[in-house]
């Protein structure tokens, strides 16, 4: 059984949006596995992560099941949820300055949840905090415990948040754009720390990012989301070498590469679906070069499994968007 299993998860907020914010999301993460969740803003990536923690916006109507290590999150009571959040699943957010209380010392931030959840032993919690600050490569753990967040740089504070996420010895780590706000070389440092800790502790990791190259570099498997639906999933190498969904192919064709020349990028035309639109068919159809009138806009496509990959497109069998998108992109290898 997988560590994390989402089955047919849907989330609606009628007051805010006409379309479902999440629709029929199926997703699994195994122990020791790094799974990427990619897509553009508004695709439902962060909402998926929050739902896994049972953190749902007020007024949300949820369907389907989310299981973490056998616990059904969506029907769990308060005590179960507290245990889930303190010792099974942790989250690393994008902006440590927004996620860490600026008025509390680093030591308090790190030990608070463990002291609350496990009743008291302050000394053991502090020892663990020191150990983790060292593990994330901070130079002076003892001093950092006494420091306030403003005394640390963004990259250092992000390491503090990672240390904090590991305090409860979780089995699943949710990382929501953990390096987006950082410089590229700091990003590499943080990712190397996450990858090392993930491998050492055999953690399952769900890595949310809008950066396809980053997902390709660190993930075993990747899910691509668009407008609240998973449109494609595959092993990372296969997904990027041979995308089957026109949206995945479009994203790849719009991303410039650092080691190749493009005469012209091929953007995905139009803009992402707004919250007020709820087309009956494929949400990507209005922007899709392969959409067929009377087919794609009428009927919502199902996620079709082929081997260990799956794609949600009525035309994926007859087209090969990856190949044609690459043909569109005129690349000169000078």
């Amino acid at each position: 059984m997988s560590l994390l299993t989402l089955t047919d998860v849907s989330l609606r907020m009628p007051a805010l949006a006409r379309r479902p914010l999440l629709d029929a999301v199926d997703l699994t993460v195994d122990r020791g596995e790094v799974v990427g969740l990619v897509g553009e803003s508004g695709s439902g990536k962060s909402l998926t992560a929050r739902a896994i923690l049972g953190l749902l916006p007020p007024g949300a109507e949820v369907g389907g099941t989310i299981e973490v290590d056998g616990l059904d999150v969506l029907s769990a009571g308060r005590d179960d949820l507290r245990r889930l959040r303190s010792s099974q699943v942790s989250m690393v957010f994008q902006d440590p300055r927004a996620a860490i209380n600026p008025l509390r010392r680093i030591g308090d931030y790190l030990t608070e949840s463990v002291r609350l959840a496990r009743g008291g032993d302050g000394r053991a919690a502090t020892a663990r905090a020191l150990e983790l600050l060292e593990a994330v490569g901070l130079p002076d753990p003892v001093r950092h415990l006494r420091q306030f967040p403003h005394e640390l740089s963004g990259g250092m504070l992000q390491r503090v948040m990672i240390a904090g996420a590991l305090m409860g010895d979780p089995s699943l780590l949710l990382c929501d754009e953990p390096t987006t706000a950082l410089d590229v070389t700091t990003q590499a440092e943080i990712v190397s720390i996450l990858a090392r800790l993930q491998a050492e502790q055999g953690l399952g990791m769900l890595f949310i990012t809008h950066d396809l190259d980053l997902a390709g570099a660190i993930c075993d498997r990747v899910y691509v989301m668009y407008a609240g639906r998973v449109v494609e999933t595959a092993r990372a190498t296969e997904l990027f070498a041979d995308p089957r969904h026109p949206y995945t192919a479009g994203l790849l064709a719009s991303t410039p590469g650092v080691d190749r020349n493009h005469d012209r990028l091929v953007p995905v035309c139009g803009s992402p679906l707004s919250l007020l639109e709820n087309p009956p068919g494929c949400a990507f159809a209005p922007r899709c070069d392969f959409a067929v009138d009377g087919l794609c806009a009428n009927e919502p496509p199902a996620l079709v499994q082929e081997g260990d990959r799956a794609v949600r497109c009525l035309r994926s069998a007859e087209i090969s968007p990856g190949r044609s998108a690459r043909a569109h992109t005129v690349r000169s290898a000078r």
Partner: protein
Amino acid sequence: MSSISAEPLLQVTDLHKCYRSHGTEVAAVSGVSFRLDAGQSIGIVGESGSGKSTTARMLVGLETPDSGVISVQGRELTGRPRGRAERLRRARAIQIVFQDPYLSLDPRLPVGAAIEGVLRLHTDLAGPDRRRRVLQLLEQVGLGEQQAACVPRRLSGGQRQRVAIARALAVEPRVLVLDEAVSALDVSVQAQVLNLLTDIRQETGIGLVFISHDLAVVRYVCDETLVMYRGRVVEHDSTRRLLDDPTHPYTRLLLSAVPRPGWDPAAIARLRREVAGLGPAS
């Protein structure tokens, strides 16, 4: 295309800027020089604290350099502007687009009116002509009458950034500075804006100073690139040569830090500490 001997569109010579905080002096920019010809595009890359944004702000007069000269088509822009005419002249020389269009557009003003305000200030166009020009400018960035009537909040992030570009272009500047102007956009929309910038450059001969941390985007947009590290230009070359065959260790570090298959973040972290051995790290 002007030859080397012709007068450059933008000439920046030996810019310096220090900030004083808590009694210590920090050299934000020291000795930055470059030239830009009409229709050319130059990239400035580096990480936070490298001085790239300070350079951008000096180009448009938001900061005053301690020393050094900025001139556009031979006319100097350095020093505090004196009087309205001088300020307007400078605005027509160089315009800037920032990363976050939320912060640079008035939230209460329909975007068409925002652009019209710029035209009223900088041109003699009468009412109807002015409004025609607003629509023309919006059309140039792929927007229409419908969007002109919207306040920024009603537009998507990509649309807002196009408005910011249209507004900058309204004064028909010689040089456009883009300070991380596409960094906050989703990739599909980012590609639209990048292509738009390429087209505008070809059509109008405007010069672009493109400030970014994203080397892939810089490769796509810029003819030449400067790499800045702690206020200094450590490498300056044609973009292709610089990215295909970097010579400075910091350029190599930046390049190796870009995620791709076979990427080894641990090796980059080590390389980073070696380069940072020259001074304090993060």
